[in-house]
């Protein structure tokens, strides 16, 4: 594990460098354990890391790094399966033709592959309600677009690398837009204001026409 300062009141603990469910499970458990400490203001799990904001009057990078190592050495609690969300998708995104072309797969095949797995919510972040879902099957793996769009409509279902995601709000974005869903991801009147939480599971299905 690499633990390094991220500014004078935070640090980044990196548990690994791979997109891996077991590492992500450990990161989420470590963040939850750290949040209970009095000297920790926030602990946010990433894919394979935890960003820890601490109270500089109560802790130093060194004291917290030692505490993180102790916590990480403990066996993580058994993970309960996250809530399962079933998300209907209409596969008519503005990039679907381009994705068909680049992957040399039919539209039907792309739909079948994209809606096959049960994805894990690795983390919620970037913009309100955005969830990084994975792993996306290798057959659909594409690098991000060379030129990001300045505005992607809310509800767009997208893929990039080994990940899939849904744009919760109109925002800039560099992923390939393969479809859209009517399900609302950003719930401003709820707390937390989002449908998905880290550790949840997501299954896409073809929306009835």
């Amino acid at each position, binding site marked *: 594990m*690499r633990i*390094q*300062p*991220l*500014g*004078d*009141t*935070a640090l*980044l603990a*990196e548990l690994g*460098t*791979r*997109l891996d469910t077991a590492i992500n499970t450990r990161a989420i458990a470590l963040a939850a354990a750290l949040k209970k400490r009095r000297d920790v*203001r*926030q602990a*946010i*799990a*990433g*894919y*394979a*890391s*935890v*960003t820890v*904001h601490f109270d*500089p009057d109560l802790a130093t*990078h060194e004291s917290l790094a030692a505490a993180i190592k102790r916590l990480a050495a403990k066996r993580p609690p058994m993970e309960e399966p996250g809530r399962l969300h079933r998300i209907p998708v209409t596969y008519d995104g503005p990039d679907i033709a381009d994705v068909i072309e680049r992957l040399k797969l039919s539209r039907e095949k792309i739909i079948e592959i994209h809606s096959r797995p049960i994805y894990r919510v690795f*983390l*919620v*972040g*970037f*913009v*309100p*309600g*955005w969830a*990084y879902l994975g792993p996306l099957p290798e057959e659909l793996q594409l690098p991000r677009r060379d030129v990001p769009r300045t505005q992607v409509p809310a509800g767009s279902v997208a893929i990039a*690398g080994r990940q899939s995601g849904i744009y*919760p*709000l109109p*925002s800039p974005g560099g992923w390939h837009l393969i479809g859209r869903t009517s399900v609302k991801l*950003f719930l*401003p009147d709820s*707390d*937390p*204001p*989002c449908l998905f939480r*880290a550790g949840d599971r997501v299954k896409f299905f073809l929306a009835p026409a």
Partner: protein
Amino acid sequence: MIPALHVEKPGLLTTVQDLGRPNAIAAGVQPGGAMDRFAHAAANLLVGNDPGLATLECTLIGPALVAEQTCLIAITGADLDPRVNGAPAPMWTSLLLGAGDRLTFAGRRQGARAYIAIAGGFAADRWLGSLSTNLMTARGGKQGRPLKAGDALSAAGEASKPTGAGRNLPEHLRPAYSDHTLHAFAGPHLKRLDAEGRHRLYSSPYEIGRDSDRMGYRLDGPKLSITGEELLSFGLVAGAVQVPRGGLPILLMADHQTAGGYPVVATVVSASLPIAAQLLPGDQLQLAEITVARAQKMRQALAAALETLRGEAG
């Protein structure tokens, strides 16, 4: 509730801000809050408030506000040449406005963001534990938007330590906004920069680019080349200097995205963020490397300056 202030002109971008919503980061909501936390806290303390109450953050062109009743205010941060009924008004000082008094700003003299506090704190919409305006989601503050002409502003209550006019933060305790040096130390991915890049980062001035706002500043200057594979997204902090593939660094500010995967090669220390908050597109900045220990000392010095305003009877 009788409004305290009537908004005659809103200024360029005037928003209600407090300390933001750190508890909503895990939902992907930008932490938000005042860009210059020092000026924000000082303004509150000068009028007898707890340091985290809501203030108005006024960007570059200040608003024109008319007092509807007697109220105690303080103006801190950028010097936008504040005037009361046309006469120069002191900054970093508590001021009593009488009914009908007009607060205006004649123009930028130094800095980018001025803060106006009112005794009792400004009343505003609470969202996820904070009154800060989140422009992306149109929540919090004044209906999730910047102030507009015709708005009425009220105090949320009474000051916790009622005080009077004339309290002041001495000049030597205020941030040196004219010095655009931002102190920083290594970020977790510094090794992804080559030796030349590491040298450039701390030796070249950078200019704040046009696409810069409360989310972050794009820095124009020498490009930095990054090596290695894409990183898995991780939680970000204000002050992080990230370098995308294009090689021009981005300094993350209060409304930064909560997670990202660009390498963070440096982090501007918390004591320099008030200086960063006072920069606008076209301004130049220079990063200067310091130790973590020095950063802690600088942070403590700012906290001590604010401490002089606590508890002291007005």
